């Protein structure tokens, strides 16, 4: 358990996220099938595979570079809504910090997630309550911001953040989709969780596990 995360930690974290998404490919497709078009799991799996491969090849020297490289690989590879949205998730975290920064603490991390969330909301135009990944990410970011004002370590904070994402993902069950393919289902989207919101949970829990 560490106070700060360095570039090696982030490499491990990205691998952990990739593994978790590969393992949950079908689950995520099934969630997307019910009210969307069913591709979310395979699309995300392709994106993270590409990100991890690109990191192998480029071997970026900084945390910032690593996160930007991973995010750009996702954006460049998978298209769909997930490509730009989840690509942005990583690349904006990278952009939020300086290339010279060799490690990040909990406060940095909270700030990075916040930047990411806001860019995603600007890019896709989704607000909390629209039944998207924002509904998992937004409470999760709030949660880590609270943790960052306390004395908990990163691991504990990430655990709590992942739990907040999980709760957020579950809360999408009672929402009517207003964004993306599931929005065509209108009221029929009630009663089912959003796929992308669950992806946020999987990403954050894989992050937590790798810390």
């Amino acid at each position, binding site marked *: 358990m560490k106070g700060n995360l360095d570039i090696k930690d982030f490499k491990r974290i990205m691998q952990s996220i990739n593994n978790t998404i590969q393992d949950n490919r079908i689950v995520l497709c099934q969630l997307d099938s019910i009210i969307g078009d069913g591709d979310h799991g395979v*699309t995300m799996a*392709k994106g993270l595979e590409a990100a991890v491969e690109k990191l192998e090849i480029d071997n970026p020297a900084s945390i910032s570079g690593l996160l930007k490289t991973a995010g750009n690989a996702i*954006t460049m590879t*998978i*298209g*769909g809504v997930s490509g730009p949205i989840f690509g942005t998730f990583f690349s904006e975290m990278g952009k939020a910090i300086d290339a010279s920064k060799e490690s990040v603490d909990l406060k940095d991390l909270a700030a990075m997630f916040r930047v990411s969330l806001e860019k995603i909301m600007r890019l896709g135009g989704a607000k909390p309550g629209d039944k998207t990944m924002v509904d998992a990410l937004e409470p999760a970011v709030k949660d880590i911001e609270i943790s960052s004002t306390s004395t908990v370590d990163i691991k504990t904070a990430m655990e709590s953040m992942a739990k907040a994402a999980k709760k957020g993902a579950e809360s999408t069950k009672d929402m009517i989709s207003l964004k993306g393919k599931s929005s065509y*289902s209108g009221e*029929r989207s009630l009663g089912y969780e959003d796929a992308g919101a669950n992806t946020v949970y999987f990403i954050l829990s894989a992050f937590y596990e790798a810390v």
Partner: protein
Amino acid sequence: MKKLINNPKDIVNELIDGYAAAHSDIVKRVEGYTITARKDIPVKDRVAIVTGGGSGHEPLFEEYVGKGMADAAAHGQIFASPSSAIILEAIKAVDGGKGVLLVYCNYAGDVLNFDMAQEMAIDEGHRVDQVRINDDVSSGPKDRREGRRGTTAAPIILKIAGAAAEAGLDFDSLKKIIQKAVDNSRSLGVSLSACTLPETGLATFSLEDGKMEFGMGLHGEAGIKKVDLLSADDTTITILDLIIQDLPFNSGDEVVALINSYGSTTKMEMYLIAGKLHSYLRGKQIKILSTEIGEFCTSQEMAGISITLFKLDAELKKYYEMPCFAPGFRK
């Protein structure tokens, strides 16, 4: 559903290679990318047309690349729009100096990625603008047409775009006529059975025996109403009524009528629908210039059909009747 595939992860890649091999007289692959293009790109002395979208809807989009239609198509994975990187590459490959118009179907993922690509291309010095196809009347109210999906009007819109580009229209005039073509198109479909994603073998929805769903999306997104299976005649009338009142199409109008199979609906069934469509429109004094029947825009092996009506004026008619030579559309 059993499918004839090889490595599930490599489908789109192989599909494009096979397509380029089969139609090497007309098209080629832009090497290294999931892009199909006319053999003679970059085009000189006229504006170029780039289309594209998710795969799994073949012959959309690749078969509408060719003389008098699109110059290139950027392809995403199954049911996922192409990434901005691929679209950008397509723009760069076709631009011969007169600029590029992006003509694609209105889905959140496509909008995000085409918008990003457009921005990047403009940064790199290209002139780029776009028109979104949104013909599907079932996917939003008339007063919020900008939120509607693009579906089976795509080949017709690309036909007009390609003909007008070939005719040498300038950038702004071309954008205007493509937008008019979109504004004059309305479509609605009905689904009878599910489609499966080739990579996972999972059906994207299920539809009970004896039921059909109007307005279901091309990816199995839920539609506007689920009803007991109707006859071919009643299905045709239900669809036409919804389309006709939406534009609206009026007595005296001349149209192109397109009847599309989503996958496993047969030509036999489509001709029954064509018969009713003709007699019904005749009754409403709507004249049909041309009836296009076939698989234009599929959802894998989904059963069901869609109908598109496209209202002509003198200008659109002229461009519709100009010759075109793409693997999936010939005039």
